[in-house]
């Protein structure tokens, strides 16, 4: 159905080489998330798959069939854009019907699919409105509806939630995940929000400057990051990195330990430092600990009720078996 294979795909804009040779396989029905810092080529990669950009070299296969030179419409993919890209002069109904109209789907079939999509996405009451009269979340749903009715082999999402407020984002995140469970269609999802990546993905692809740093399930990336970049990128708050003597004692150039793998105490521990900013989330508190002699600042997750104040002395103890070790090039040891 929707197996997508990239084979030595490259892309350059003039002199600028954005994607160096890249291999990637996306299995049928998988929810794959591309993450990476801004400008690393996530959108470009997605647009290459969509056919909105031509590859400079290499091959893209969809379902085993060479799609490198196929037009976007012939690839059987549907895309949801960051700006939604709804047609402002058409009603919601016409927006959703547009791809079917272009494909020559019969009227009654069109109506059936529109009603189905509208019911699934809670859009039934808004079918006759214009996109301009909808809220951000509703527009997002229309864009998804427009993608669904095409019954594509795969959905492509380019940061679809970045224009929504936090609460709505959580809601839409769930809706998209549920949609994926229900349709079981391949989905490729671009984001730079690693919470979205961790919660939604079957498989995460971490990109940096066009290179794939690591591919794996969210927990694989969390537990065994292949290098310092992935280790720092996946997980929130960021992993703490400690260089120097402490690392050398463990036979590494640098060691990393996640904030949630450090125990804090006001009485005793391996390391000690002074409490800086404390971010209270209620359930947890993130403490920024200074003057440890290990790194500028260590972030520690502690229980929400731990009674510490700014400037207090605090003792830290890392969980030895959850310490990651890296060599000078940043590779995992």
């Amino acid at each position, binding site marked *: 159905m929707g197996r997508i294979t990239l084979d030595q795909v490259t892309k350059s804009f003039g002199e600028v080489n954005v994607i160096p040779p890249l291999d990637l396989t996306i299995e049928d029905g998988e929810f794959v998330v591309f993450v990476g810092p801004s400008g690393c080529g996530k959108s470009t990669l997605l647009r290459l798959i969509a056919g909105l950009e031509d590859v400079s070299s290499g091959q893209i296969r969809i379902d085993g069939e060479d799609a490198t030179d196929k037009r976007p419409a012939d690839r059987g993919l549907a895309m949801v*854009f960051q700006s939604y*890209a709804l*047609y402002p002069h058409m009603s919601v109904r016409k927006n959703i019907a*547009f791809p079917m109209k272009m494909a020559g789907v019969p009227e009654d079939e069109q109506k059936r699919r529109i009603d189905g999509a509208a019911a699934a996405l809670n859009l039934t009451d808004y079918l006759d409105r214009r996109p301009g009269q909808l809220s951000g979340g509703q527009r997002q749903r229309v864009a998804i509806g427009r993608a669904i009715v095409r019954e594509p082999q795969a959905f492509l999402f380019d940061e679809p939630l970045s224009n929504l407020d936090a609460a709505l984002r959580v809601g839409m995140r769930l809706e998209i995940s549920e949609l994926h469970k229900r349709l079981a269609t391949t989905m490729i999802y671009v984001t730079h929000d690693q919470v979205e990546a961790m919660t939604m993905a079957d498989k995460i692809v971490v990109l940096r400057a066009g290179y794939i740093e690591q591919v794996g399930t969210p927990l694989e990336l969390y537990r065994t990051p292949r290098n310092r970049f992935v280790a720092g990128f996946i997980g929130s708050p960021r992993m703490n990195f400690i260089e120097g003597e402490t690392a050398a004692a463990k036979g590494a150039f640098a060691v990393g330990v996640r904030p949630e793998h450090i125990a804090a105490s006001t009485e005793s521990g391996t390391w000690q430092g002074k409490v800086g900013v404390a971010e209270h989330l209620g359930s947890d508190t993130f403490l920024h600990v200074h003057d440890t002699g290990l790194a500028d600042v260590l972030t520690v997750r502690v229980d929400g009720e731990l009674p510490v104040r700014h400037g207090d002395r605090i003792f830290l103890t890392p969980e030895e078996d959850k310490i990651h070790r890296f060599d000078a090039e940043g590779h995992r040891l």
Partner: protein
Amino acid sequence: MATQHSRAAARLMISPAVLLLLGWMLIPLAMTIYFSFLRYNLLMPGMEEFTGWTNYRFFLTDPAFKAALINTLLLVGGVLLITSVGGVLLALLLDQPFWGQGVVRIMVIAPFFVMPTVSALVWKNMFMNPVNGLFGHFAQSLGLAPFDFLSQAPLASIIGIVSWQWLPFATLILLTALQSLDQEQLEAAEMDGAGPLSRFFYIMLPHLARAITVVILIQTIFLLSIFAEIFVTTSGGPGTASTNLTFLIFLETPAALRRGHGLGRGRGRDHPGQHRRDLPDADDRQEPGRVRMTRGAANRPQIRSARADRTGAPPAAAHASGGRIWRKMKVGEE
């Protein structure tokens, strides 16, 4: 923001501007309407009298009125059609990335900066003139007889000239509108399976609708009052073939009468304006269909005669042909 209080304040603030504007517009308008019911003769100031609808009847019953009305509609409609369709196509073309885009865009706008009088003269003498014009040469090089645009298709020629002037305006506005179209919409449409034509009709054209309306509204205002182009090319002729309402009004004025225009009375040939060479003389305008081989003295009798009067050197054939046409035209009336 929009509380009762702030709205009242806003009204107070803008009221001077509104009052000024009202005065600026309403007083002249009221005066115009007032004068339109007077018999007002500039030669006899102070003798105005109320005449009711006479001025209106006089104008509306003018035999040329209906023709002028139709010509006006054709002129405005034709130019609007050409400029909006052509403008959209040109804008689409200029929106494509190509080498030298910036320079080409500036050049496309150039006609808009040429004064109407000048551009009309250029078209008349350098392009449409059957003897000296480029089109004539081109026709001849193909072995065809040159077409005398301004005599045989006067209105269409003027529509062409005016369209040439206004096409840049339409192109510019439409190009700007086109560039403001969200590229993602086009990409979405492309992914939705819309080909170039569907993308144009379903996405671009609706997006351009407002800009096209603006182009049509603004152009209509200016096109209704086209004058210079007619004045220097056909002078409304042959007959009334290219007279629009604006030009018809001009023909009713003393200035036109003294210049000896076709529908005027053919008096007062010594209007100072005629000393300027560029102004077309009556003969130029009033000889429909005649392809002139030379533009010698005989073609400019009035200018010659006027000059002669001043310099004291009597021109030979000038007076002989000077008012010929007028006499022809006026036979019935005088």
